């Protein structure tokens, strides 16, 4: 009978109308991120970092701009670690390249900004702020 399929389809949609919700109320309710989730800002562990710049060398899009200074004992210190999210592909190659596991994602997926300049940040500064905040 012509129209039987239409009625069957309507039954499906009505069934879901009274069924369980598939979505969450986003800003109030957030989905948990997985352990391996790639996204957000880079968290640099300044204690572990030796300033070898391998992460920047592995970046396919040159999203990392690092400045390293050498002290009188010829020890290298990372003075700035500028990450441009606008250029970042979140490919994870920087983190995988680090032999000292000094880098990880902060897993914050709400990285949209009003201005383009806000996409650029300094991971060393953020590490300092985190440390100051904890003290």
């Amino acid at each position: 009978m012509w129209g039987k399929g239409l009625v069957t389809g309507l039954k499906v949609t009505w069934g879901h109308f009274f069924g369980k919700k598939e979505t969450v109320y986003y800003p109030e309710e957030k989905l948990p991120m997985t352990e391996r989730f790639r996204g957000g800002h880079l968290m640099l562990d300044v204690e572990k970092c030796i300033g070898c710049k391998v992460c920047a060398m592995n970046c396919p899009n040159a999203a990392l701009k690092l400045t390293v200074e050498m002290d009188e004992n010829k020890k290298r210190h990372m003075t700035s670690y500028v990450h441009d999210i606008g250029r970042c592909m979140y490919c994870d190659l920087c983190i995988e390249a680090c032999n000292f596991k000094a880098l990880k994602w902060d897993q914050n997926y709400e990285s949209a900004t009003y201005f383009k300049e806000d996409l650029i940040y300094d991971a060393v500064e953020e590490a300092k702020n985190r440390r100051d905040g904890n003290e």
Partner: protein
Amino acid sequence: MATTEKFVLNMGPQHPSTHGVLQVQVELDGENIVGAKPVMGYLHRGIEKLMESRTYQQCVPFTDRLDYVSSMNNNLGFCMAVEKLAGIEVPERAQYIRTICCELNRIASHHVFIGSLTNDLGSATGMIYAFRDREKILDLFNIICGARMTCHYIRIGGVIADAQDEFLQKTEEFINYVPEMLDEYDRLFTGNEIFQKRMQGTSIISKEDALRFGMSGPNIRASGWDYDIRKIDKYGIYGKLDFDIPVGKTGDNWDRYIIRLQEIVESAKIIRQCLDNMPEGPFMAKVPKMLKPPKGDAYHRVENTRGELGFYIVSDGTNKPYRVHIRRPSFINLQALDHMCKGMVLADAVTAFATIDPLMGEVDC
């Protein structure tokens, strides 16, 4: 006496049913289509050229951005081509994980096909159903590699991380859900009379024409050719698996839709076999960090969700490819658009785009 003249209508690049930034110049005689000319290049990023200035490992994330709804398959194509060039042997466990991911990705990509097709035919509800189920697969990818669409999970020599038990268990749950999911699609779309009337007998590509256009993937199979690279080349572990190739008869829009539904069943069958026979062992071969394949060239093709995806790589012995050429199935399938639209009415042009299933990231490259 009243005279009429032909009218050229620009569909796109911002038209909601052109799946990205495709512009189609449709020549109309009243409501009937005389010709449809696709205009491409709005999404051209020069990926082939970009790859020439990146190391082999750095090239892999760029392949994610070709066909961004089936990135795992693109990763696989590129990595297998480099492995062929450098003579790298991939561990067996990695091959199984790769196959699971690629087939899950094939299902997710077909969800996008079903969703966008129903949306283009005027049923926005249909899209929500397909995308709801696609979400389940994207969540699985989020567990295994930390990304949902641009996965960058398959690497040269294997996969970057081992599949966790959580992933394998949830994959099995999804595979158990597939029959129920397809049953719901059948009740919602396949049995719908309007849906059938719009699709059956429209935009027919005959068996000869499909070959003439060099089509591949589900589109050529819908026209009656039993052509699947997974069966022909038996790359990876596909030779060990038992699955069928669904083949259509008439090559109309309806066949192209049904083929994809059947392919979801076959993909689920493949994943189940992989889960049952998954061996233990390493997931990554020993690959030098500075990979320098010997001088020479290699071509490797895989069955992407849209057809035959081939990577041709020329190496000059350094750590960067000298030249990469990508044979993109969407680009070649799109040639048939003019043929499919001729003689149809304007509303059918939208169905024709949807059933070719082109993805502009891949067309423009």
